[in-house]
């Protein structure tokens, strides 16, 4: 039974949940609510969180290469209806163990991702990789606590979480309401400052910590077995890139990343699998346009408030959520480039 009481804003396939009889009974508790409640929550209220785990419906995932599964995030802002499942998240299965690559944007999404893993394999979830500080990627981590995995992050992730975690969590709670319940900040237990290899059993993942780009704590993952490059938010496709680290740093990282030969890449937002490096061209074009036009605006004395009106207008219409993020990208870039 797909539970969808609110459907107005959804543009892509919803995360449909198969609710059992218990869930349906639980759901009645929320009968009066006009907000869609997930089966997860309804059952959690009736039976407690432990019982709910067995009932949690699996997040839909696609096997993009042998043993690599990705859930396709919707191109929306975080909301109660989408449970912050707006990023591409997934997992890689080896002969001995499973690695989660981004546990999702909320406890609810993390639980659904865990159910998707258990639908594929009973092997232990040994690693939960946190690709960067943004909530839509890592705020589902608490759903994996009982698996006692290593939570692996960039060496600068703890600092970024200290600065921003509380703010992000409160904002998520305000936006998602009860859909955010269970969501907690889980700091990384294993830090990567350069590269780190993880062995999943006949399958080696190479993690790489990058310099400031999308954020100052971006991790990428390369699966040697299938030559798959998991870029998370160093690659945006269709959805406008968000500059929250360094514009020039990001362009530099892209220059290095494009020298990696891979059969496919996984963007943090966009299709679950794209060709590499062809898929990065629009992002590079956007970032270069922002750099070029913002420098010109600073040089001609246009203030930070108005600069975005004259920056990268050629990109309007080529990206989803352009108006929501482009002005902020220009503000961030202006603050970076005015120090040149």
């Amino acid at each position: 039974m797909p539970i969808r009481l609110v459907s107005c804003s959804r543009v892509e396939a919803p995360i449909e949940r198969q609710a059992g009889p218990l869930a349906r009974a639980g759901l009645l508790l929320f009968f009066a609510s006009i907000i869609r409640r997930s089966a997860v929550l309804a059952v959690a209220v009736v039976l407690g969180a432990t019982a709910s785990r067995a009932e949690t419906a699996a997040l839909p995932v696609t096997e993009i290469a042998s043993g690599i599964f990705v859930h396709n995030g919707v191109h929306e802002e975080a909301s109660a209806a989408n449970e912050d499942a707006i990023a591409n998240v997934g997992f890689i299965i080896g002969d001995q163990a499973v690695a989660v690559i981004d546990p999702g944007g909320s406890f609810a999404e993390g639980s659904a991702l865990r159910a998707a893993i258990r639908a594929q394999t009973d092997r232990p979830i040994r690693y939960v990789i946190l690709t960067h500080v943004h909530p839509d990627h890592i705020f589902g981590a608490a759903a994996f606590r009982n698996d006692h995995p290593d939570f692996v992050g960039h060496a600068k992730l703890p600092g970024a979480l200290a600065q921003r975690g509380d703010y992000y969590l409160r904002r998520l709670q305000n936006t998602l309401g009860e859909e955010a319940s269970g969501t907690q900040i889980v700091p990384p237990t294993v830090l990567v400052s350069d590269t780190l290899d993880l062995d999943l059993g006949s399958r080696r993942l190479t993690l790489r910590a990058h310099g400031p780009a999308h954020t100052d704590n971006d991790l990428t993952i390369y699966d040697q077995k299938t030559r798959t490059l998991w870029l998370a938010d160093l690659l945006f496709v269709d959805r406008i890139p968000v500059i929250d680290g360094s514009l020039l740093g990001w362009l530099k990282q892209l220059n290095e990343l494009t020298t990696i030969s891979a059969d496919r890449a996984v963007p943090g937002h966009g299709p679950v699998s794209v060709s590499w490096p062809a898929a990065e061209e629009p992002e590079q074009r956007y970032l270069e346009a922002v750099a070029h036009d913002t420098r010109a605006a600073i040089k001609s004395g246009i203030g930070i408030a108005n600069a975005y009106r004259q920056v990268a207008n050629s990109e309007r219409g080529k990206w989803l959520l352009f108006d929501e993020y482009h002005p902020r990208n220009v503000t961030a870039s202006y603050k970076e480039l005015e120090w040149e």
Partner: protein
Amino acid sequence: MGVTPTLLGRAALVLWLALPGLARAEPTEAERMARWADLRHAIFGYRVVEDAGDLVAIDAPARAEDAATVPVAIRVAETLAPEIRGLYLVIDNNPSPLAAHFVLGPIADAREIATRVRIDDYTYLHAVAETADGRLYATARFIKAAGGCSAPAGKDQALALERLGKMKLNLADRSRPEEPLGVKLLISHPNSSGLQMDQVTRNYIPADFMQTLEVTYNGQPVFRLESDIAISEDPSFNFGFRPSDPLAPGVIKAEILDSSQRHFSQSWPVPAAAQM
């Protein structure tokens, strides 16, 4: 000043911290007016604060794109500007409402001073201009922005640390030596608000902000700023002044004292107008 910014800030901060996570109801217009009346009394006591009419204006976006970096300019009419010796910027609904108090020297150009601020909630901004003989002129502007004070700072924290205290100064083109010289001053400082909590340690990250900024030209004061956590990370100021002798070279100096008692200072030569 009737009350120090710190005291005023602390009282409001207590109120703000008492309400974490609660959805605060949007204040009515009457409540907003009452809040300004309280703030006005706290800052100016029983002094008369006149409506500035067209004499003072606030230039700011109606809706901020980034609540942690909201550009705000205070403009004073040409006719009034020579009399102005003080400018106050109040962000009514911020945890520490008195964002900036500029004390202007005689050579300052009071027609426009711009900076960037953090804004925590939908709020009125008030700008008050003070004349040399103590008259006060106030103007208001409503702005839609939220979350700026506790918003994440430091997109690149390593760079922020490395650059701490560094300043950058740009002089506007000066085609007419008799006109005031326009200056843009950038300061690398986290100016952190102390409102970000480390979720792991459950401690608030200590506030670390610029308390005073003094700008002089050949030793003459251009302005002295008393500021607070509301000034954005990497504080930025646009201002102008009239060099006493525009045809002679001079030196601009900026000095900062922050809440960690660090002192930063930097000087820049200003070529004579004819040479520019």
